[in-house]
């Protein structure tokens, strides 16, 4: 029988500070590039505009193609799409205040016209066109954000009801962290945000939430066993106990995502990339973000004395706070497991 990560005793929480620095840096790079290179690469579903996917009989000369398209749609993006026979053209309407969809459609027709003049009607086929008015786009954007907030709220309420509010808050905050990191990733790698990618982000939130819940579920169970040990040790144990499950599930999910990434074609690629990256984010955040956050919340709002008294170490803070005054976590008195090495600095 194969066993991976069986009875491990890693001190995960010890690394929370490194993890915090890494993730904050990553988010900072992402947000920084917002300032440098402007906004997110929204698909035309969100900005309004025209998209055409073309397939040529002969590989066209890109410069010529650009010159041809520029006649009617200056500034249109031209991208190779998979093979050198397929191209997508994008003419965005960003900042267009008036609802000029009619011209949006008109652009598609005009582009088709000039291309027919240049390459002949037989020289290319239009495989897909999309023309979206800017109003539709802004509504979509709002809808996506509202959906995300609502999903977080519902999760928070349910977890507060099933566990207690501290767990709920930690889970939702760590999910919020996932959104930030994913946005940073999307920004850094210039992935086009379409509705499908929004779907990926939402799936990822659910996935990461699940991961956190499974660890917290273990924590809850171990707490019930009434061990006299600090929460930090309980957390570490819970993470270690759920480690085989985490590794295995992430492996199967990654396999499925990789299959999408490699075989499902160009249209789903952004979705697959976000999901692929997301599996790692979810794993990371359920261990290094949700746990420390739970400890931090616990320290700020300790349980009443009637609850099990936890000597919560002060070693853990919210990542935003920079004060580092960690105490040594108390050694577990109930010698049930091997002693944890205290976090040395």
């Amino acid at each position, binding site marked *: *029988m*194969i066993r*991976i990560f069986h009875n491990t005793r890693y001190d995960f929480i010890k690394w929370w500070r490194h993890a915090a620095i890494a993730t904050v840096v990553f988010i900072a790079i992402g947000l920084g590039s917002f300032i440098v290179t402007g906004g997110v690469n929204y698909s035309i579903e969100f900005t309004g505009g025209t998209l055409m*996917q073309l397939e040529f009989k002969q590989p066209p000369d890109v410069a010529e193609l650009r010159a041809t398209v520029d006649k009617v749609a200056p500034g249109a993006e031209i991208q190779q799409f998979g093979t050198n026979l397929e191209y997508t053209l994008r003419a965005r309407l960003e900042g267009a205040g008036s*609802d000029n*969809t*009619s011209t949006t*459609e008109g652009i598609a*027709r005009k582009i088709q016209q000039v291309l027919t003049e240049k390459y002949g009607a037989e020289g290319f*086929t*239009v*495989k*897909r*066109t*999309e*023309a*979206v*008015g800017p*109003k*539709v786009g802004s509504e*979509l954007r709002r*809808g996506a954000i*509202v*959906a995300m907030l*609502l999903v977080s709220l*519902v999760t928070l309420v*349910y977890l507060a009801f*099933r566990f207690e509010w501290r767990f709920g808050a930690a889970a939702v905050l760590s999910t919020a962290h996932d959104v930030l990191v994913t946005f940073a990733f999307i920004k850094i790698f210039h992935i086009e945000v379409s*509705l*499908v990618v*929004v*779907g990926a982000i*939402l*799936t990822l939130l*659910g*996935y990461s*939430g*699940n991961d956190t*819940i499974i660890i917290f*579920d273990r924590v809850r169970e171990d707490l019930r066993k009434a061990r006299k040990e600090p929460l930090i040790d309980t957390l570490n144990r819970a993470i270690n106990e*759920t480690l*085989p*499950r985490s590794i*295995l*599930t992430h492996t*199967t999910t*990654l*396999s*499925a*995502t*990789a*299959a*999408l990434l*490699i*075989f*499902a*074609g160009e249209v*789903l690629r952004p*979705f697959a990339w976000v*999901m692929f990256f997301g599996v790692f984010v979810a794993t990371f955040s359920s261990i290094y973000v949700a746990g420390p956050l739970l400890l931090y919340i616990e320290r700020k709002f300790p349980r009443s004395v009637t609850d099990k008294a936890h000597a919560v170490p002060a070693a853990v803070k919210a990542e935003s706070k920079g004060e580092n005054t960690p105490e040594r976590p108390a050694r577990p008195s109930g010698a049930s497991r091997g002693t944890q090495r205290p976090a040395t600095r």
Partner: protein
Amino acid sequence: MSNLKYRVALILALVVASVWALFPRTVVERVKRDGSFVYDTVRRVPLKRGLDLQGGMHLALEVDESKQAVADKSDALDRALKVVRTRIDEFGVSEPVVQKVGSDRIIVELPGVDDEARAEAVVQQSAFLQFQITDETQALDKVLPRLDQIIKDKGTAGAAVAGDSTKRTEVPAIPNLFSKDTTAAGDSTRKDSSNAAIPPTTGGPFSRLIQGGQFPGEYMVAEKDVAAVETYLAMPEIQGALPPGKVLRWSSDTLTLGQQFYRPIYVVDARPIITGEYLQDAKPNSSPIEGTVVEFELNNEGGRRFRSETGKHVGDYMAIILDDKVVGRPPVIQSAIGTRGQITMGGRDLQAAQDLALVLRAGSLPVPLKIAEVRSIGASLGQDSISKGTLAMVIAVGLVIAIMIGYYRFSGTLAVAALLLYLLFTMAILAGFGAVLTLPGLAGLVLTVGIAVDANVLIFERIREELDRGKTVRTAIDEGFKHAWSAILDTSVTTILGGAVLYQYGTGPVKGFAVTLIAGISASLFSAVFVTRTFYMIWQSRTRNVQTLSI
């Protein structure tokens, strides 16, 4: 033991129901044969493919308020919805979708339609039909000098038509009302222009763009000048100076005279003698003399009015105006017309006549609509997406099966069997709810294959832990399921809640995604927990006194 019997029976019943739900059935529907639609019985798998997987067109329509504000948009859309639906039904597409979304949008989905322009025209035409008598009184000629003066004063003359005037204006001779020769008009004016680039002093900036046509009220504008004339006509000053009680209407067609393209513009009485509300029926037809025509029939009241009005105007020309564009060339009224008449299509094909008859029959839109969104996907792309998506699915399932069996051996095999059932159930749920499988949905499905085994992994890990503590196989299995249940329940419920929120607030693809998610989680709960448990029970009942479990 009886408990086990019931469990097995339930699983079998669900499998049978799922297979039945997914079994291709014979339905009568409109299918495309050699480019035309016919009703036929076809075998179809109930799980519908979305537009992005089968090709077709998706339109989103909104109320167009650019001309006038609409008070109750939602109500107007409800009325428009009926008209759009009637038109689309007649348009002949298999399984079209026409629905109102929210309070301000109509969604139209036309699978398998590849002629975008035509579909847009049919949907969007207001189809407001009016019959108006063309102007008899040379009213426009009388105000032309004033119009020229206005434009000169504004000093925009040069900007719009700089150096482009090679035509000399003619003061329109009194046209021959009974002329049958359609190519004579305007032709003479063109020939003697002889490219003399002298802007005629008599021709003002406006009047030199416009020439008299064949009969009173008809004028010709060269195609290249149309934009300029439109710009002028849009000026409020010009609007104010136009003859009262008359309106100008462009023709929907272009005339070819010799080498030149002209677009006719007509001056007509503002008051229509009759509008399309009295229209009862319209049929396309073609006659050898007039080419394609649309024959229309008015109801009794309309017929009465029409007869008395046309009776007053015998010898005049009557413009047939659809959506503020003149259709064909206005025919001369030879005698009073009753309930029947026809619209000549001016050399356009039968298809155009069919479409016009269709929109006339379906009635006019209560409000003008504008297209807020168009997506069209070629059928080949859809086919491509399906094959790629399916390939990804097969590979994902293969990988997951390999991992599970490799790691959990016998128990893994049980999980894999449960996984295959999971796929079957999910598809069946989707088909049962009439959900449409889209490309993102397919991606979601592939992804859930990876996630669906999570419940099994949780359970198996738990069983291993219990076995490590030295428990018997039977107890370990029981305890493993019991302990894993709380985590499985919590994760499933949060996912379902999230999915429900998305379903409620999401649009389009996100909604489809949510449906797939909810169906997937429900199916995986059942298959991973209930089905696997049953498998273990069967195994335990077959092999008494098990000492070891391959997990």
